């Protein structure tokens, strides 16, 4: 599965659950990812789950969603169920390997 499938899934769910249009849903998820130091093209399901649980509630509240809890729980559950393919080298995995840490990002 491509790494950004997690991003697409989160956007689709947010669009459906929060009643956002496509552009707003994608923009909101992108902002949450940027706040977390992640990029849409490379985010893994596990990272997306953490972002949904820890960062997205604040972004949704800022956009007038009074109870973001159920929405983010649904997104987190669905992306957590996705399998994460072994992706290509990232700068993080390369620098982990260069220091002798075996190339395993946290």
């Amino acid at each position, binding site marked *: 599965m491509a790494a950004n499938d997690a991003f697409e899934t989160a956007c689709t769910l947010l669009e459906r659950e929060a009643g956002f249009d496509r552009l707003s849903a994608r923009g909101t998820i992108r902002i949450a990812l940027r*706040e*977390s*130091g*992640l*990029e849409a093209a490379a985010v893994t399901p596990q*990272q997306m789950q*953490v*972002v949904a649980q*820890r*960062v997205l509630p604040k972004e949704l509240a800022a956009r007038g969603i009074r109870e973001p809890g159920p929405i983010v729980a649904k997104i987190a559950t669905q992306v957590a169920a996705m399998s994460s393919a072994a992706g*290509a*080298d990232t*700068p*993080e995995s*390369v*620098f*982990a*390997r*260069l*220091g*002798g*840490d075996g190339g*395993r*990002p*946290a």
Partner: protein
Amino acid sequence: MTLAIVAGIANLVFVGVGTLVGVRLLVLASRTRELPETMLGFSLLLVSTLGVGMLALAAMVGTPEDPSRPLAAIGTGALAWGWILTAEFTRRVFRPHSPVACVASALSVAALAIASASYILSVLGGIGAVGITERWEWVVIRLCALGFYGWCGIESFRYWRMLEKRLALGLADPIVTNRLFLWTAVMACSVLNLAVSWAATVAGASPVLEAGVNLLTLVAGTTCALGLYLAFLPPAAFVRRFQRAA
């Protein structure tokens, strides 16, 4: 004079640490068969061991008009190829899918390769009436080196900032995050070192300027050596500090 000796020792330490780290990365590359460690390992050996080492030796044994010339040519060639490998490492690790980075990197690598080949031939054949620093090759080599190190520094700084944010969410390894910071510092000090030596060469010799250059060389050389050591040959106590924080 004392400052010059200390700055020379800092350069020697940088050569030693760069060589150790380069060898370690090539040993790692022999196991993993991956390109980043191969490129960085060769790059460090070419820049620190052969490049800085040979140029320092050339400066010690004579002037540009005498038998030190081949040493200076070898040193310059090694530096150029080391810098080319640094650029390719940066592109492959940080911008593997960017066509802009690919084209820009290829053009500047070609410029550096042509300039360094022409420069080496000039050094071997005698510079002639035009001084070394007035030659176009010298300017192109310096500009490319500054550009490559600057680019690598900016990319690693950007990625380090991203990892800092991930760290707050438990999505990054503290020691890898620190390694990106150390690599950024190494690149920043390399840019500083190159820029200062360029400015000093262009400005001409003066005691005050020489003292400033020696001081900056001392700071930059020491920081580079320390950064490389902690990033790629970290002592156990340093690693444990980060494991406790994780």
